[in-house]
């Protein structure tokens, strides 16, 4: 263990003062790019659909519970200041419940048995898929 430490120390000694500057510059560059590139936009509205019929768009900046009547029962959607989830659903698999909270633009929860789909939309809608 002591020998290993000695070897590591020997390696670290090879780093010169300018190298520390280079390392620092690249860490800052990486962090800066990561903060720009991983800044996913937040949505503004929640669009609720049943089948093809749009039930409505609701602002995300509120705390409300929406109950939507679907073909097999009632689905309960909770909007909690910026984030949304499905809290009750009559379906058997409960995939929609397990998806948990969504809060980013274009995220969607779908409950196929009850034909309910909710998605977060913004002022501008992005592509839902791209093909190349």
């Amino acid at each position, binding site marked *: 263990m002591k020998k290993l430490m000695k070897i590591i120390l020997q390696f670290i000694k090879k780093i010169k003062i*300018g190298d520390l500057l280079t390392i620092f510059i690249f860490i800052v560059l990486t962090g800066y790019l990561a903060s720009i590139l991983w800044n996913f936009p937040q949505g503004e509205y929640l669009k609720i659909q049943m089948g093809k019929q749009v039930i409505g768009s609701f602002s995300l900046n509120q705390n409300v519970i929406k109950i939507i009547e679907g073909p097999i029962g009632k689905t309960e959607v909770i909007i909690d200041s910026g984030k949304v989830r499905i809290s009750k659903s009559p379906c058997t698999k409960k995939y929609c419940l397990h998806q948990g909270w969504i809060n980013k633009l274009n995220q969607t929860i779908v409950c196929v048995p009850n034909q309910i789909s909710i998605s977060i939309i913004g002022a501008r809608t992005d592509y839902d898929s791209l093909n190349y």
Partner: protein
Amino acid sequence: MTRSIIKISSQDHKVAKLASIAIALSLIEFFLPSPIPGVKPGIANIIILFTIIKFGFSTALWVSLIRVFVVSIIVGTFLGPTFFLSLTGSIFSLLFLFLFKGINGKYFSVISLSLIAAFSHIIGQFLIVRFWIIPHDGIFYLLPVFLISALIFGLVNGIITSTLLNNK
């Protein structure tokens, strides 16, 4: 039939030896599994850096380009997208190494050069991916992952090269 004679200089022998080591390292790396596809340690870079310090830039240029062509032929990706990615990465690395090789001295060591090479390699590859292979901005979400790996492996490769240079 005339026999053409190619004179082989000691420079050619040197390039061949260094290139063969770089090719061997690349092949070892090719068969190593990677947790994230595309993230590779780039251990052949050690040889390129070693060459650039010991024998100068033009030797390193030869070694690097020979490595890219031969490895792609052995592995079977010659003229495929992987080959062009590799080629672009190498050309970008060499370009930035050419620009910055002067800083190696009292304050900066080969570790800085290694980091510069690793970063320019990634940037070059991302540019060609963005403009040719996958023309969509979505790939830039992956950039920080590759930059972090460039930081780690650039540092490690730089320290290894520095050790190699001091031992000689």
